[in-house]
């Protein structure tokens, strides 16, 4: 097939895939919202009492129940919520009384910023270490990387977070202990909610530097374990492709090692690596709850946990829908990358 026709075919396949995913995404989110709504309603709990506080009097609880519409029959509440959802209205937090979408607008960028930087670290260092280990298979360097991988996978991120705090913040005083910014610093004017980006847009260089420094330890805590998984997948994928006949052929033709590894072997080893990275990044974005707790990171994960503990049902559903959306989007991106990496998939 000529190159132009192949490219057009790839574009059409990608378009179809996107359309299909978009339609299923809507159905999935709707289905999830329905299930979550029903589950939260049948739970043996009284959200109005929680919203009123532990020392509230009965009349206050009843007042809140009425204000929040929790006294209405289940089907009425359901219809109101679902019709609101269709208009993009995620409802009102029972606890903060703010719109859930406003709360998510504040919380999600914190998680997004942390996740994007962690993803970059995972891709660059995870894949890099995997390649280095594969081309040095059986040597001391390979052994060292594999040891690092085992340790990285074995240590839970929140334990690592505590160690990092003790060593790099308390011991060496290299990085801040917690938070997105120093207590005395005001956040940059809100544009994206990503402090690094917003501080750059506002030309606040000191703020940019401070927000980067605050990101260092949580990113390390979050990325290290997943980076190890990335290195392991890349190493095994690379070892398999490096033993393929076409790699031997490339070497026999006199190609230098670098293009053999990067152009011939690495590209073909990428598919399982991309699958793994897609899943990992989905997990990152869905909120590394414990890392957010340890570093006082006001992100989506912490918001979801706080909402669950306080029976803030609409906030729980809102957070869950955002997390579901992230997973579907990251999986779609992975599928599109498959098509790009291996055009044979589009023909299938």
């Amino acid at each position, binding site marked *: 097939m000529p190159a132009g026709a192949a490219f057009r075919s790839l574009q059409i396949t990608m378009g179809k895939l996107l359309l299909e995913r978009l339609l299923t995404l809507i159905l999935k989110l709707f289905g999830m919202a329905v299930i979550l709504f029903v589950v939260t309603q049948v739970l043996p*709990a009284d959200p109005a009492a929680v919203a009123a*506080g532990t020392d509230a009097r009965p009349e206050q*609880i009843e007042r809140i129940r009425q204000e929040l519409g929790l006294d209405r029959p289940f089907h009425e509440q359901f219809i109101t919520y679902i019709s609101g959802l269709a208009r993009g209205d995620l409802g009102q937090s029972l606890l903060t009384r703010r719109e859930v979408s406003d709360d998510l607008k504040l919380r999600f960028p914190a998680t997004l910023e942390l996740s994007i930087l962690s993803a970059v670290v995972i891709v660059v260092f995870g894949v890099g270490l995997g390649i280095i280990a594969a081309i040095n298979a059986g040597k001391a360097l390979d052994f060292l990387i594999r040891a690092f991988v085992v340790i990285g996978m074995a240590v839970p991120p929140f334990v690592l977070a505590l160690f990092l705090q003790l060593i790099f913040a308390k011991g060496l005083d290299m990085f801040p202990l917690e938070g997105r910014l120093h*207590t005395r610093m005001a956040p940059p004017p809100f544009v994206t909610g990503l402090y690094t980006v917003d501080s750059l847009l506002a030309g606040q260089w000191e703020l940019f530097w401070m927000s980067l420094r605050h990101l260092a330890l949580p990113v390390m805590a979050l990325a290290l374990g997943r980076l190890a998984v990335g290195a392991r997948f890349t190493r095994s994928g690379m070892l398999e492709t490096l033993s393929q006949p076409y790699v031997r052929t490339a070497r026999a033709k006199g190609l230098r090692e670098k293009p053999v590894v990067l152009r011939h072997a690495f590209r073909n080893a990428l598919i399982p690596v991309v699958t793994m990275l897609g899943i990992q990044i989905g997990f990152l974005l869905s909120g590394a709850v414990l890392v957010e707790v340890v570093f006082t990171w006001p992100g989506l994960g912490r*918001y979801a946990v706080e909402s669950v503990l306080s029976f803030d049902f609409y906030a729980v559903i809102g957070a869950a829908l955002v997390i579901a959306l992230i997973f579907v989007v990251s999986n779609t991106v992975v599928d599109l990358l498959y098509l790009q990496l291996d055009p044979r998939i589009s023909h299938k």
Partner: protein
Amino acid sequence: MKKYLRIVIAVTLLLAVTPASADVTWTGAFVLGSCCEPNSLDPAAMGISQTEGYVITAMYEGLTQYSREGEIAPRLATGWDISDDALTYTLTLREGVSFHDGSTLDAEDVVVSLERHKSLGLGNLGFILAPVASVSATDDMTVEIQLTSADFQFWAGLPHIKILSADAIAANESDGDMAGDFFRENAVGTGPYQLVRWDPGRQTEMSAFPDYWGGWEGSHVETFIARYGLDFSTRLLLMEDGELHLIDWAGLSDIRRAETSDAISYNLGNPLQGFYHFMKQDGPLADKKVRQALMHAYPYEAMIEVMQGVALPLNSPALSGTIGHCAVFEPAQDMDAARALLAESDYADGFSLRQAYRHANEPRRFAAVLFQEALAELGIEVVLDDIPWGTFIDAQRNFDTAYDMSSHWLNIPIPYSGEMLFRLNHSSLIDTGTGNWAWYNNPEFDALLEEAPTLAPGDPRIDELLCEAQQLLIDDAVVIPVMLSQYIDLTHSSVRGYQYDPYGFPGDLHVHDIWLEN
């Protein structure tokens, strides 16, 4: 000449931006590592067991306040007159008080604030204004409050009702919401600190209000920051580094940490908070002898010991130091007396009970396990359920699903025994899930509680009536007063002027009195 002019202008500008006082020493930012974030900054939404009080009381003031001795003292009102029938309260307002928006306090601000609080009723302090029939301005600086019936709790609770700027309410009203949306995230009070910014999920920052009527002589902090969501270990690490100055609601284990640190010390306070064990009058517990046996079997001393010196025994269902308290009970475990009472009952061969205690709370768990062990010696099996508040209250609304026994902290916002006794066992709370988990229904007890607050403040009959009510609860053995668990907070060694104020509950820090050394 130009040089001097520049210096004069520079000094003038500096003075203009610095809170006014020639003798003030600013000592930096006071940072609180708070357990809990406010859901709202609106004083009308303030609860009595949440930490929003720390922030709100720095920015807002009431007409009156509690002195350190628990007496009602002037704040925005300088004087008052209470009619003989205790139905009319006339208050004279302080002159020269400014709000953070620049307006000046007058009677209209008080009328609008009180009416707003009563109408919105968002928080759980609404009961304080429930007996108010009308609020009117008799002149610019005098307010008259008329009650529908005499109610002592109104006067005792008035310090917790904060005054807002009427101008700000009018300017920010939308769709008749009495500026509810605005005040949820903004603050316009008369307090010593004014809101700079609230970053939800992160912190609230307040700065010294230059025109504060109380003045700024001496040493003060120029900024007050309340930080939220900090993990326990992170709070301690930050305090050791001097980045936090106060940690609220610390735990027992934090005391050990404070004892080994030069930078941290711990403080104990006696809040208006008691820990109680309720017995639902059903099955074996419908028998008074069984309930009395359980009261004898309660491991009071062991519980205080487990609390490692940060709890005090209770000698009444009411808290000592509150109006109307009297000692009616000796908290001592007596297993022989318990066995004798059980033997006299129809349940001498043992039985089984279900007990709930609130999720994730060390003292509650200790109490439940200790009592379970003590009752096992009497042949009584106790099945424990560790459940969250929302689930608990849902179960406790219904007699059939309610637990046989439950243990709770109860807080009261006013130093008045009647309020605690009401929360413990008034019959109006039956089937509401919010109190009286013993399902105690005694018209005599209810009548005592209802009559006491109708008497004028200071009437000695208040003590008599409430004392009788306390005795009834002990005689009927429906609730076990376990202990007064002390409030623990941690302060950094640089903090000066801080003193826990039990009457300022919910959470008056008196930041104006605090300063930092070095």
